């Protein structure tokens, strides 16, 4: 009996099971505490929509064999850059969103190409180098935000040069513009249909891509590089393509995230954004070498669900101390460490 339970847990995956169980306990606690469950669900759905694409960005990178994209900030900065340029021209509303999305695709393609090349040069230590690439690009953009001579007063400091730490979407009539699109309330739960559709659309596109000839080639290269080589595939080129896609998803993801949040966070805002995204896909059952769309969906729901529920529940249980953030730190990094212990050392050489 215990054996079969153990087997079932192993099949689901220990992180998925543990986080799922914890979420269940928290939800029950929330119910007992008399918290408004519809409000919680509304929050969860909202945050799933905001974070979904950032988690989805992990899939191409993992499938191609470079491992989870710890350099998510590369794409994020690309997206923010696109957003800032469009804001400088004082675009607003849907026009702002669409132009910045388009521009971010262009910028992220360039950044992703460079990043992919870098990943090919450091095979075997991708995760470490990716992390520092992410940190470095954030630090670089810190200088950039401060030095760039953008003149739109909605973005600058009151005094001195450079851009503000947080830039309000409200000033551009674009706050929560996607998040509130087609919002439907059912039983007190506000379902952000527009947002869900956008997320679903991108999931579908990524899934479609991996049904294509190139997508298959990328997948094979990640699963078994020797097999791909014997099939005459250009593995390095495919890894670059995968990382470009991952970077583009991160760029689009941050624009969607920011509009949902209502602010674009510059400077050190993106510094640690890769880790929750990596943790989420791992919670969904992915490993450092295998990931799928269901992993993303399950992961982002469980992880964001946990974070959303934990805050009010914990605050009521232990007033005054912000234990929910500590819980996030422990779970997030615990899950990543667990995944690292499952990485086969030495790679394919």
């Amino acid at each position, binding site marked *: 009996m215990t054996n079969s339970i153990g087997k079932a847990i192993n099949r689901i995956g220990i992180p998925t099971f543990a986080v799922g169980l914890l979420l269940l306990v928290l939800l029950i606690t929330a119910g007992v505490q008399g918290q408004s469950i519809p409000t919680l669900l509304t929050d969860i759905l909202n945050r799933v929509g905001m974070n979904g694409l950032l988690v989805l960005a992990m899939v191409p990178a993992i499938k191609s064999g470079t491992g989870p994209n*710890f350099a998510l900030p590369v794409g994020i900065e690309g997206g923010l850059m696109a957003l800032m340029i469009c804001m400088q021209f004082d675009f607003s509303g849907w026009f702002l969103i669409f132009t910045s999305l388009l521009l971010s695709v262009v910028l992220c393609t360039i950044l992703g190409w460079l990043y992919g090349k*870098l990943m090919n*040069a*450091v*095979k*075997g*230590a991708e*995760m*470490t*180098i990716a*992390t*520092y*690439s992410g*940190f*470095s690009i*954030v*630090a*670089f953009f*810190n*200088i950039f935000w*401060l*030095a760039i001579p953008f003149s739109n007063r909605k973005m600058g400091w009151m005094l*001195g*040069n*450079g851009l503000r730490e947080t830039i309000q979407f409200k000033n551009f009539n674009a706050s929560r513009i996607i998040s509130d699109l087609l919002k439907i309330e059912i039983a007190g739960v506000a379902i952000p249909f527009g947002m869900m559709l956008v997320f679903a659309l991108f999931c579908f596109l990524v899934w479609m891509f991996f049904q294509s000839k190139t997508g298959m080639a990328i997948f094979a290269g990640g699963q078994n590089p020797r097999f791909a080589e014997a099939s005459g595939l250009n593995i390095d080129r495919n890894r670059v393509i995968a990382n470009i896609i991952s970077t583009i998803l991160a760029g689009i993801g941050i624009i969607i995230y920011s509009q949902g949040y209502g602010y674009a966070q510059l400077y050190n805002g993106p510094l640690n954004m890769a*880790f929750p995204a990596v943790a989420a896909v791992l919670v969904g059952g992915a490993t450092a070498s295998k990931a799928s769309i269901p992993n993303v969906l399950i992961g982002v729901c469980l992880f964001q669900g946990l974070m959303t529920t934990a805050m009010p529940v914990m605050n009521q249980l*232990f*007033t*005054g*101390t*912000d*234990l929910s953030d*500590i*819980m996030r*730190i*422990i779970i*997030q*990094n*615990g899950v*990543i*460490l667990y995944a*690292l*212990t499952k*990485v086969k*050392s*030495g*790679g394919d*050489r």
Partner: protein
Amino acid sequence: MNNWIAKVTGQPSFDLKTWILDHIVTILFWAFIILGLLTAQNLTMDGFFTELCNRFYRNIFLILSLIIPVVAGLGLNFGIVVGAIAGQLAVIAVRYWGIAANEQSFGGLTGFMLMILISLPIAVLIGWLTGTLYNKTKGQEMIASLIVGYFGNGVYQFIVLFVIGAVIPVALSHPMILYDGVGIRMSVDMGSVTYSLDKILQIPFVPFMIGASAVILLFLLWNQFLRKPKADGRSTKLNVLAFAVYTVLCAAVMVYFIIQLVTGSVLNKVRDVPVVLMLVVAVLAVFIKWIMNTKLGQDFRSCGMNQTIAEANGINVNRTRVIATIISTVLAAWGMVIYLQNMGTLNTYTAHNNVGYFSVAAILVGGASVDKATIGQSITGCLLFHAMFILSPEIGKALFGQAALGEYFRTFMVYGVIGLSLGLYVWRANKRAQLKMPEEAASDQTVIAG
């Protein structure tokens, strides 16, 4: 049968491009510092040196704690963060009792020694756990050590913010405890432990420098002319050029400081040197040298060079790696205690956060890499790195009119240095591992055979 083997003497030829690539980070830092010293406007020499020395005293111990894991093949241990956390837990405990007892029995040097003592078992336990984890993540130790730091931070926060007070009973009125009786406050004052190690014996900076350079000079001369060859017959003598350069440099420094002493320049205003702290660092350096010369040290090196061969020869590789991690963690804990007695305050929730990045960046700037680190590299790295830290706001101000830019720039330097060094290391290792074209491989063979 004798003498059929030609003596192998080939000296590697000097290649400027390789040399620059090998030392790119150090070169960049020198350039940056020289630029800073030239452009800085509000910087006095005594201010600069005081700041630099202070930072050196505080950090060098932490940086030295990185050496052993590098030698043992674990790479750069970003996980010294958890060592620092062990030190902070000890500091919190001792300060708690110290304040409760009005510093009577837990203040000053006693308090300091108690911190050292209490941090030891905590660091050994944490070191053992992280070492075991590194064994399970072989090949990915560096990313693992980074995440271990984050994970440890979470657990630490849980302890100091919640467990203390909610689980461990504490005095509600204690000034270190938050208002509601649960958790430690944002900052902990080191009280009379501050400078307890530093102030045992302090001597003025300029005479110290004269003395230190004299000692080094004497050592150089002794090494070159009087020292007997090592037991295994190897000579320790430097080549003539290196000897000349070092001697002249050392003499120049000595003469320079003698002049400063005589003319009574501003350098005489530099903060006094805490001799005991320097001695402690010297003892640590000797300890590292000594342990590398024991059987254990040789095992570290064997594991670091090639785990498979070490294992095949009966060395328990995993155990050896755990020991290396434990030593590193304990040294980091002690390093943190030393750091805090010099700082005077513990920022409970943030002090440990950058310990890993800064120490690793510093040792890399000194010329270390994933598989090589020495005491000399730690010292140069510490000086160069912290000189950059002091100068970067000045450069920002001078070049862009914004000090904040300089600060962002220095963050960029920290991450950039680590990224660049590690990236170059892996890139070159991959290049070496790449299979050669058959003709090349064949010609290599004949060169070797002939």
